[in-house]
Each structure stands twice: as structure tokens, then as C-alpha cells.
């Protein structure tokens, strides 16, 4: 079983990209299961992903990188044993530090071959986010394998170039790709980079 963690700040486009990634994996013949985590006590994305025909487990009322670590480990084991997916795709809350999830699952889940982190960045709100939650954004970029700079359709070329340059400075060796999950631009390249 492989795991793909789709991290990124609240509202950056994680669920939209998750559905595309899951569809691409399923089209390639893989069995895919999804784990959705919401910090509030009411789940929203899980129902939506389920309506798209994917098996989903939901964790509410906390964050799987800290307060719900035990829940994540139990859920991953349960999904592995009951469903036997080739891929489990995890959407943490937008406040999660994916590095903490990476360390946790790599150490505790037997039978996990590969854990990839895709971090989604909201190009439209980039400077607004840096102003208020820069340490969180930085931590989400530091542990990424691939970074999708999303909502490219909502900014002009100059703004997009500036965000891409700033994100590349903060993302170490990660591959940084501009995409628009809304229009589909850049999505084939992103999906290829993750497979």
C-alpha cells in the first residue's frame, strides 16, 4: 500500500485536486481509498468525495498531525485490513504540518511502501496567507515532494511567476508546478509527477 498525503492551507484546493488524483489512479487500475480529516466536528468533504464514488473514512474534531494521531493510525490500519487499497489518499486539515504525519505513518503502519506528500498552495491568497500564517505555510512546503501552486487561473502571469519563485525558495528539492484545478491547466503534468 502506498499513501499520498494532500496537504496545504485551508481552501487551497486540496479536495478538488484529490478527486483528480484519485480518478487518475483508479483509471490506471489501482484500488484507492480516501481519508478525510476536518478540524471542526462537522465533516463536509467526506460526503462530497463519497458522492464521487470513492470509499472514504472521516476523522473530525481535531487534526491528524497532532490531536488525532491515534485516530489516523487506527484508521489507516483498518482501511489497509478491510479494503486492501493500492493507494490511500489522505486529506489532512489545512492547519496540519504534513511532516508530522509523514513521520507518524512511516513509523507505525506496517505494509506501507511509500508515502508521498503533495502540498497545495493558493496562488490567489499567497501574500495574505504569508502575512498571517507564514510558519504554517513554510512547514507545509518543507516536507513536500511535489508542490502544486493552484488557482493559477485567478492571478496574472506576473503574480504567478512571483509566487512560483517564492514557493521554490521555501520548498527544498520539491518539484513545484503551477496548476489550475478549476480549468485543468497543468493537471496532467502534476498527475504524472506524482505517479
Amino acid at each position, binding site marked *: 500500500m502506498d499513501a499520498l498525503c494532500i496537504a496545504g492551507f485551508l481552501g487551497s484546493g486540496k479536495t478538488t485536486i484529490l478527486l483528480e488524483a484519485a480518478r487518475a489512479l483508479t483509471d490506471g487500475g489501482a484500488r484507492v481509498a480516501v481519508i478525510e480529516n476536518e478540524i*471542526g466536528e462537522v465533516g*463536509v468533504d467526506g*460526503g462530497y468525495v463519497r458522492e464521487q464514488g470513492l470509499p472514504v473514512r472521516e476523522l473530525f474534531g481535531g487534526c491528524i498531525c497532532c*490531536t488525532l494521531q491515534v485516530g489516523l493510525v487506527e484508521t489507516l490500519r483498518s482501511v489497509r485490513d478491510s479494503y486492501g487499497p493500492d493507494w490511500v489518499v489522505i486529506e489532512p486539515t489545512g492547519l496540519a504540518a504534513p511532516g508530522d504525519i509523514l513521520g507518524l505513518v512511516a513509523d507505525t503502519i506496517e505494509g506501507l511502501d511509500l508515502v508521498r506528500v503533495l502540498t497545495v498552495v493558493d496562488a490567489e491568497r499567497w501574500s495574505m496567507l504569508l502575512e498571517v500564517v507564514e510558519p*504554517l505555510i513554510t512547514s507545509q512546503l518543507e516536507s513536500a515532494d511535489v508542490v502544486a501552486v493552484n488557482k493559477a487561473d485567478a492571478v496574472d502571469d506576473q503574480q504567478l511567476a512571483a509566487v512560483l519563485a517564492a514557493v521554490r525558495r521555501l520548498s527544498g528539492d520539491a518539484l513545484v508546478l503551477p496548476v489550475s484545478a478549476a480549468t485543468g491547466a497543468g493537471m496532467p503534468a502534476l498527475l504524472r509527477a506524482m505517479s
Partner: protein
Amino acid sequence: MSGAGHEHRHGDDRHRHEHLSHVPDAASPAVYAARAGLLFDPPARGDDVEQALRRFLAALSSALSAAGCTLVGHIKGGVNGAGGGLAFHLTRLDAAPAIAGGHAGPVSDAELTLNVIVFGVDEARLPALVQHAWAEGAGVAASWPD
């Protein structure tokens, strides 16, 4: 909110989250999540349900702005009834919400699902801000959890 802790209130029940230490203190998220039962009397057309939702989101955006909100994490959820459902997502107070879906026939009752995470607002104020925005904006009877 103090130190590395994240205090999180659900009605009268006060939980102290173990930590959200990667979230800096100056940028403490305020969280409110709830389901509310909605009663449309007389039953509303699908378009009217969507307009009520839009008025609620506009009223909530103004109220959050006035309350000092510095950043919206998200305001998302749905309105689901027998004849269909609406999903909404908002990430800024100065833009229209993304709304998808709809209701086919007249709607007499539905459930509102709501998940709000904002910055710069006292979390203890959120339930009243949301419920007041619904009452003033949507003008539709709602029963909120205690």
C-alpha cells in the same frame, strides 16, 4: 489562547486540544462547526433556498469583517434536503462564495452543515455571530445545537 495550546469550545463543553503547536499564537484559528435544522414555511423554490444561503454568507462576511477577521481559513458546508443539495465554499470576505448544486422541487425542510475557520476573531463569539447572521440574512427558521 495561550502558549502552544489551542482552546476549542463546543457549546458549554470546553475541550483543551493537546496542541496545535505549529500554528503560531498570533494566528490562532477560531473554529465553529454545526448542523442546523431549517424550516421553510411556506416551502421554498430551489432558487429561493440558494438566495437565502447567499444572503446568510453575505451577512456573515460583514459580521466577521466587523469583528476583526484577518483571514478566512474557510467557510464551507451544505444545505441538503429531500430534493437535492447545495454545497458552498468561501475563502475570502470580499468575494462571492462558490456555490454548487441545487434543489429540484419545493423545499420544506433541510439541514445546514457548516464549518467555519477564521483568524483574528475570538472563538467564543463565533456561534452567536453565525446564528445572528443566519437569522438576519437568510430569514429562515433554524434550530441550532445547544
